[in-house]
């Protein structure tokens, strides 16, 4: 064993951390090498010198400050976990409701237009003009909604379906 190898193992030799084979090798080298014995003595002296330089005491309240920060961190993490999930479900509900409302409105508009055209075609221009003079709805272009005898919107719709069947 060379001096460099022996000296690099000195602290594990002193701490009894070497395997028995390594320990025997270092021990044999120390017996035969005065320079490494001096190195061992210096090492023991250095350990004593280092131990004579204690660290100052830890600042008071250290643990409390760490735990307070951890608590804040935990609360923030819980909020960020809850937040997006809630927003996602709220947006989903809003989107679904808006789509349903739009479909309903489109259906109503389509029904209205179809009913008006059918009524105009069957009643003739004179009846339309007469209705526009007597009813607010008719004046607004919604004469098909005006109840006038058998020519109501319901009658128009029924007629349309019967025509379709023939």
């Amino acid at each position, binding site marked *: 064993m060379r001096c*460099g190898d022996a*000296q*690099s*193992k*000195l*602290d*594990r030799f002193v*701490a009894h*951390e070497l395997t028995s084979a390594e320990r025997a090798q270092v021990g044999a080298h120390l017996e035969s090498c005065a320079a490494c014995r001096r190195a061992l003595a*210096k*090492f023991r*002296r*250095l*350990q004593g*010198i*280092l131990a*004579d*330089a*204690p*660290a*100052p005491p*830890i*600042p008071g309240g*250290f*643990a409390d*400050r*760490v*735990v307070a*920060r*951890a*608590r804040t*961190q*935990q609360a923030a993490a819980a909020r960020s976990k809850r937040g997006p999930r809630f927003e996602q479900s709220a947006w989903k509900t809003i989107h679904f409701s808006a789509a349903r409302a739009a479909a309903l409105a489109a259906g109503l508009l389509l029904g209205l237009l179809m009913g008006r055209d059918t009524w105009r075609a069957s009643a003739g221009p004179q009846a339309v003009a007469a209705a526009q003079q007597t009813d607010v709805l008719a004046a607004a272009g919604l004469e098909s909604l005006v109840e006038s005898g058998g020519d109501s919107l319901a009658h128009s719709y029924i007629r349309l379906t019967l025509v379709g069947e023939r």
Partner: protein
Amino acid sequence: MESSLSDEALMLAATGGDLAAFEQLVLRHQESAWRTAYRMVGCRREAEDLAQEAFLRVFEARDRYRPTAAFRTYLYRIVVRLCLDHLRKRRPLATDGLAPVDSQLSAEQQAAESEQAQAVREAIACLPANQRTAIVLRYYEGLSGRETAEAMDSSVKAVERLLARARKTLEVRLGDFFRD
């Protein structure tokens, strides 16, 4: 109240959000974490920030913690990494290669510190960061060669070499104290 649970059991309890278990871990290891950071960076205020940060990293990563190594070694590794990062960022400011002497020690405290203790502190501060880390973990914190290597993400042989080089430097710098 002091818990009888092992560090690893407390850490697993903290994984489930148990802050009291985490507090027990902090109380058990606060001194070694703070001391290590202090000896690495040489400043009380910075040591407090770094040691706090180390515990918070432990808390943040609690879900990923696996008790494959001792909690103590795991914590030392985090403290060491944070300190080395901190020293790397600070390096351009240290024009003379010396770590800053603790600016928060009062005149009285500095006077009370023995001449030898002051020389030791300065000699350690002058070591390269990896040699200083090895000295702090091995001789001050009393970690074994294997634990020191684990905490430094290194091998036992590499730590042996670092310690041998550091000891040579310290023996020269502290030569006056070897004579008596």
